[in-house]
C-alpha cells in the first residue's frame, strides 16, 4: 500500500472544499453549465444519459480494504448499490445527484480518495500493472514511478487545460499487463547494456477514432530524468497539439503529423533547459516515495503446500479455478488471485456494495488488506498464502466472483454503452451478457484458451476494441445498431491493432458472428494449444471472413 501523509490529505480536503463551492455556484446559477463543465470534469463528474456519473481515481489500481469499504458505502448511500470498475483501473458510479456530490466526495476523502483528473483535458489516472510489486517477471515495482508521476501531474498549473485528455501507463515486467504501447505516454522500465534501470519512452499510442501503436522516442531515459522529460513532452503537446478539431487533438495525431523523429527533437529542445532543474530526481526523493509503499510482512512459507494439492485433487471446481485465476507470486508460498467480475449474464466490471464489503473483509483476512483493480475490469487479491486458497475460493464462490474465466472468451472488456453513455451508438453490456450465455460451457471456454473480446459502443473506444483479439465496435447505420468486427488485435508488448473482418453486422447477429469466428478458429488452428491470436497471425483474416460472410 502507498501511505498518504498530511500533505496528501490536506490537498484532497482542499479539493473537496473547492468543489463544494463550485457546485453551490452552479446550483445558484452563478456558473453556467458550460462554465461548470470543465470544473466538474476535473473532479470526475460527467453528465450522462440519465444522471451525473462520478468516477473515482484508484491510483495504479491499488486499494486498501478500508477504501473498498468506502466505495461500498458510496454505492449504498448515494447510488444504486453498485459500482462499475473501468479499464483505467478506476470505479464509476452512475446515479449520483449533483447536490449530493460534495458529500460523497467528502466521504471518499476520509479514505484518501477523490475524483481528481479522472476526466477532463488533463493528465488522467496513471495506470500500471495490477500485479505490480508481486509479479514474478518485473524488475522493480512500477508504482513508485506511477506515484511520482501522479504527484507531478496532480493540479499541474501548466497542464490542466491540454488539447485533450492524456493517459500515461507504466510497466516494469517482461509481459506488459498495462498496455503501455496504446497510451499517450507509455513507460517501460528495463535494464540497459550497462545494467542500469531506466525507461523506454513511447509516445502517441492510443485507440479511439484514429488508433495508433505508440512510437519509441527515447530507448533509455535515466530514472532521474523521468519527471523533467514527461514535463517536456507535455509542454510540446500543450503548445502544438491541435485544438481546432476534437477528433485530432490527442498527442498521437501531433506525433503522426510531425513524425516521431521531429516530435522527439521538439521534446529534446524543451527538455535540455529543464533537465537539471527542480524536477531532476535525487535518490533521496525516490527513496522517500519508495518507502511509502509498504509491503506485507510475509511469512516464510513453502510453495505448493500439501493441503492445496489435496483440495485440488478432490474438487474439480476448485481445480478449475486454481488453474485459471491464480498466478505465481514472487514470494514463495504466496499467490496472486484474480476475482472475475465477469459472471455469466453480468455486466462486465460491476460489483455490488455487498460484494465490495465482502471482498474487503476477505482482503483483510487473506491478502494483508490489499486489493488491486486491473484494466481488464477484474479485481485482484495480491498476497494470498497458498494454503488459504481453498478457503478463499469457497468464500469468493459464495459471493459470485470465482468464475474461472480469467483471460478466456467470457472475460469480456466492455464500455457501459448506450445503457448509460450519452456518446454511445450502441448498447455494449447486453452484447457482453449474451456472449457470456453463448460461451457458458467452461470446458469449451478452456478449450478455446486465451481469447479476449473487447466491446466499444462507439468510436471513442472505451472498451479498447482495436486491441481485442476479437473487437466489436458499435456503429449506427440508418438509425440501427450495427457492429464492426475486428480480429487479431492485442495490447501487450507486441501491441497490434485488429484487422477489419468485413461489413458491419446488425446488433441482433453480433453474437452469432462471434460464434462463427470462434468456430472458424477451432477448425483452423494447427494444434489445440495454438491460441486464437496465433491462428489469425498464421492464416490471416481471409479464412475467418469467408466463414462469417459465406452465409450472410
Amino acid at each position, binding site marked *: 500500500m502507498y501511505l498518504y501523509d498530511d500533505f496528501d490529505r490536506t490537498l484532497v480536503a482542499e479539493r473537496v472544499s473547492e468543489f463544494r463551492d463550485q457546485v453551490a455556484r452552479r446550483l445558484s446559477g452563478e456558473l453556467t453549465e458550460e462554465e461548470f463543465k470543465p470544473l466538474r470534469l476535473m473532479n470526475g463528474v460527467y453528465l450522462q444519459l440519465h444522471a451525473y456519473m462520478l468516477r473515482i481515481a484508484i491510483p495504479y489500481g491499488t486499494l486498501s480494504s478500508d477504501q473498498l469499504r468506502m466505495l461500498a458505502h458510496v454505492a449504498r448511500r448515494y447510488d444504486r448499490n453498485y459500482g462499475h470498475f473501468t479499464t483505467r483501473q478506476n470505479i464509476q458510479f452512475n446515479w449520483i445527484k449533483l447536490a449530493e456530490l460534495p458529500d460523497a466526495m467528502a466521504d471518499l476523502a476520509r479514505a484518501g480518495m477523490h475524483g481528481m483528473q479522472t476526466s477532463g483535458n488533463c493528465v488522467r489516472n496513471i495506470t500500471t500493472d495490477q500485479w505490480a510489486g508481486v509479479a514474478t517477471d518485473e524488475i522493480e515495482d512500477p508504482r513508485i514511478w506511477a506515484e511520482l508521476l501522479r504527484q507531478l501531474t496532480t493540479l499541474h498549473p*501548466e497542464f*490542466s*487545460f491540454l488539447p485533450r485528455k492524456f493517459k500515461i501507463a507504466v510497466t516494469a515486467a517482461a509481459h506488459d499487463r498495462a498496455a503501455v504501447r496504446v497510451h499517450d505516454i507509455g513507460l517501460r522500465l528495463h535494464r540497459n547494456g550497462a545494467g542500469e534501470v531506466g525507461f523506454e519512452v513511447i509516445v502517441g499510442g492510443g485507440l479511439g477514432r484514429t488508433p495508433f501503436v505508440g512510437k519509441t522516442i527515447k530507448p533509455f531515459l535515466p530514472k532521474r530524468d523521468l519527471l523533467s522529460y514527461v514535463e517536456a513532452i507535455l509542454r510540446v503537446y*500543450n*503548445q502544438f497539439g491541435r485544438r481546432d478539431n476534437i477528433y485530432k487533438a490527442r498527442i498521437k495525431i501531433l506525433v503522426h503529423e510531425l513524425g516521431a523523429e521531429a516530435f522527439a527533437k521538439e521534446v529534446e529542445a524543451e527538455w535540455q533547459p529543464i533537465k537539471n532543474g527542480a524536477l531532476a530526481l535525487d535518490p533521496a526523493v525516490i527513496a522517500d516515495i519508495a518507502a511509502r509503499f509498504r509491503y506485507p510482512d510475509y511469512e516464510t512459507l513453502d510453495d505448493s503446500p500439501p493441503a492445496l494439492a489435496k483440495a485440488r485433487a478432490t474438487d474439480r471446481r476448485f481445480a478449475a479455478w486454481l488453474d485459471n485465476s491464480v498466478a505465481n507470486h514472487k514470494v514463495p508460498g504466496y499467490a496472486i488471485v484474480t476475482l472475475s467480475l465477469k459472471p455469466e449474464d453480468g455486466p462486465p466490471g460491476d460489483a455490488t456494495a455487498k460484494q465490495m464489503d465482502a471482498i474487503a473483509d476477505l482482503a483483510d483476512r487473506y491478502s494483508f488488506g490489499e486489493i488491486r483493480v486491473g484494466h481488464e475490469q477484474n479485481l485482484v487479491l495480491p498476497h494470498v498464502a497458498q494454503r488459504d486458497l481453498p478457503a478463499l475460493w469457497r468464500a469468493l464462490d459464495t459471493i459470485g466472483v470465482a468464475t474461472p474465466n480469467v483471460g478466456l472468451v467470457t472475460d469480456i472488456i466492455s464500455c457501459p454503452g448506450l445503457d448509460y453513455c450519452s456518446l454511445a451508438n450502441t448498447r455494449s453490456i447486453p452484447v457482453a451478457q449474451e456472449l457470456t450465455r453463448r460461451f457458458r460451457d467452461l470446458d469449451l471456454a478452456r478449450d478455446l484458451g486465451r481469447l479476449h473480446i473487447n466491446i466499444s459502443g462507439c468510436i471513442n473506444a472505451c472498451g479498447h476494441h482495436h486491441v481485442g483479439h476479437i473487437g466489436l465496435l458499435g456503429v449506427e447505420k440508418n438509425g440501427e445498431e450495427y457492429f464492426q468486427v475486428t480480429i487479431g488485435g492485442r495490447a501487450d508488448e507486441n501491441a497490434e491493432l485488429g484487422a477489419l473482418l468485413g461489413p458491419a453486422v446488425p446488433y441482433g447477429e453480433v453474437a452469432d458472428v462471434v460464434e462463427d469466428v470462434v468456430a472458424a478458429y477451432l477448425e483452423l488452428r494447427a494444434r489445440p494449444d495454438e491460441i486464437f491470436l496465433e491462428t489469425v497471425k498464421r492464416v490471416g483474416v481471409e479464412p475467418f471472413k469467408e466463414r462469417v460472410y459465406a452465409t450472410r
Partner: protein
Amino acid sequence: MPLVKAGHAVEDRYLPILDEAPIPDSVPVIIPAARLIADFADIAGREAPTGVLWPNNRKVSELEPFLDRLALVALVFPTFKDGRAYSQARQLRERHGFRGELRATGEVLRDQFLFLARAGFDAFEVKKDADATAFAETITRYSVFYQPAGDGRTAVQRARRDHARRAVGVPQHETVR
C-alpha cells in the same frame, strides 16, 4: 473588465493600441505583436512603458530580443479551455527570465487564478466582477502543491524533506539548495 494585481482590483494604466493606430509617446501602451517586430526601432526609444499582446500560437522565444525593453507581456486565453498560454508564461518566466508584468487576458475565470499565478502570471484581466472580488479567497484555497513551478511555492517533495529534517534538528538553511 476588472484588472487584478497583487490580489486587488486596480486601475489599468496601460492603453491598448489596436493594429495600426498611432502609439502615443507619454502613456504606457500594449501594442500588437506585429507592431513590436515591425516598429521596434521606434519603440525602443520610448520613455513610457511598453507592453505587447502576444498570441498563444507563436513561440515566446521570438520575444527574446525585445524582452529588455518590455515592461509587460499580455498572453491570451481565447477560451478558458485553451491552455497554451500557461506554457508560454512558464517559458517567459523560467527560461527567458522575464520579470516584468505578465498579464492574463481573454476568458479569465475564477477557477484558473491559482493555475495562472503558479505559471507566473501576476496580473489578471478578469471577465466577471464577482470573480475579481473572490480573487484573494480563491488564490489561497490550496496550501499544498505537488509540483515545483515558476511561482516559488514549495512543492510537497521539498516540504516533506524540510519537515523531516526539522524533525531531526537539521538547521533550515542547510536544506536550501
